[in-house]
């Protein structure tokens, strides 16, 4: 349970973020409902044509959507289709580009923290687990595993000529389950929830999810970063205990080696900012170059 050290602090990023997470689910459900269809694929068609979500100026899923005629595609899905089909039409790249730009400019894993429905479900599950007092391992799988899993997914997609993650994605189970009753990845989601309840703390999002791995790679750029005011920090480690990604990503900043949390793992979820009793952490725009102190000793040694 994260304590609220500063009761006077009224704004909490975590609550704002939960609103955005729910809004993201509602955003994709809205066109289905506006078209007069039921969620979970419960509607049935008849002999006369019905109006469809695709008639509206916005509709889609997390894999692909259309905004006022502009096609958007999940960039990791596009990568899988490119290697699976061995073709790369410009339209696919153009449709993935806005997504890459938005998350690239903000922060790759802002998707994970602010949009992904699996993260929301697993956050709720983790809070539930803590209430029950079930102990789990902190980092049973190294956080960089997801990068390799992402590469493995692409290799396997090329090998089997099938976009592999799309067949197992627990994100599909939630997103497309709500939209049209697809059961893709439902087993995967069940396995993940079991693993996180009894085995590894947030192990899917932190270490395993290939989409998270893709966005981790993208997260090496990004302008929205958690910055640390060294003067205000009292090294209580409340931030590390609250981190939704991996607590070790805060260490360079806490050790004074970096001014911001630079790791691509950071979801910009704001949990550490909420948890900080001295308001030493805040979101900052821009990241600056990695400070030179870390390089100087190496140069002296050389």
């Amino acid at each position, binding site marked *: 349970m994260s304590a609220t050290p500063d009761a006077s602090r009224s704004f909490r990023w975590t609550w704002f973020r939960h609103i955005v997470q729910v809004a993201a689910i509602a955003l994709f459900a809205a*066109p289905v409902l506006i078209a007069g*269809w039921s969620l979970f*694929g419960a*509607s*049935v*068609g*008849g*002999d006369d*044509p*019905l*109006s*469809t*979500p*695709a008639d509206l100026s916005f*509709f*889609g*899923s997390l*894999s*692909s959507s*259309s905004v006022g005629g502009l*096609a958007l*595609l*999940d960039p990791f*899905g596009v990568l899988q*289709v490119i290697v*699976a*089909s*061995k073709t790369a*039409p410009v339209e*696919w790249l153009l*449709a993935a580009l806005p997504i890459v730009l938005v998350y690239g400019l903000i922060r790759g894993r802002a998707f994970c923290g602010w949009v992904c429905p699996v993260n929301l479900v697993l956050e709720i599950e983790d809070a539930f687990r803590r209430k029950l007092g079930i102990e*789990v*391992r902190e980092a*049973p799988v190294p956080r960089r595993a997801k990068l390799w899993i992402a590469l493995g997914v692409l290799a396997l997609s090329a090998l089997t*000529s*099938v*976009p592999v993650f*799309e*067949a*197992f994605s627990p994100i*599909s189970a939630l997103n*497309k389950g709500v*939209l*049209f009753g*697809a*059961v*893709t*990845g*439902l*087993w*995967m989601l*069940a*396995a*993940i929830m*079991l*693993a996180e*309840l*009894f*085995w*590894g703390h947030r192990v899917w999002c932190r270490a395993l999810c290939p989409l998270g791995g893709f966005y981790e790679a993208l997260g090496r750029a990004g302008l929205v970063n958690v910055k640390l005011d060294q003067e205000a920090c009292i090294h209580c480690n409340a931030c590390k205990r609250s981190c939704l990604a991996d607590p070790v990503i805060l260490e360079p900043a806490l050790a004074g080696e970096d001014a911001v949390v630079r790791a691509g793992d950071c979801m910009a979820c704001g949990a550490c900012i909420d948890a900080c009793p001295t308001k030493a952490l805040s979101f900052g725009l821009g990241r600056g170059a990695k400070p030179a102190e870390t390089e100087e000793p190496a140069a002296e040694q050389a």
Partner: protein
Amino acid sequence: MRISSIVAGASAAMVVLQAAYCATRGETFLLRPPGAHGESDFSAHCIKCGACMQACPYLAIRPAGSDVGMAVGTPIVDARSQACRLCEDFPCVAACPTGALRDIDERSDVRMGVAVIDEDACIAFQGMRCEVCYRVCPLIDKAIAIDYRLREGDAIHSVFAPVIDEKQCVGCGLCVERCVVSEPEVPIRIATDAERADGGEA
């Protein structure tokens, strides 16, 4: 940490079992929406985004269930419950963002499969004048025609037998949806090209 190891093992086993199950279920023949170019081309392109499902004004396109292995969540048409109406403008094809459905300008470009009639079960072949499949066919007199002929060994009665033109039938499945016979089985169904190439076993 004994229980946690068991749970970790169980979770991993669930994933591995599902993967193994998927890998062994490759040969199911699925009726795809218009514009699919064979199963291997389709499965290489489809990201299961559901755009075609959200574009179908008849809600004929549905996500495949968990009984089809890797194809779970891909769009299929269950012709018996809701067949493809062969819209003139093919909104499903227009909606597909990854080219899994493509290259359809008119109805005759569609190649979902071909209707196949089980002559032992079809009541028309038993001497009843049914003609339902013929009358509902969007390509009436092209894809399905009625062959009027004298019943075998019967000098008085005729048979009004529906006959499929394999070159013109596009496999929309409306005949399957409307067929009046369901016991012991529906005597008409859509066979995909892959199934026909495989020897016609369902």
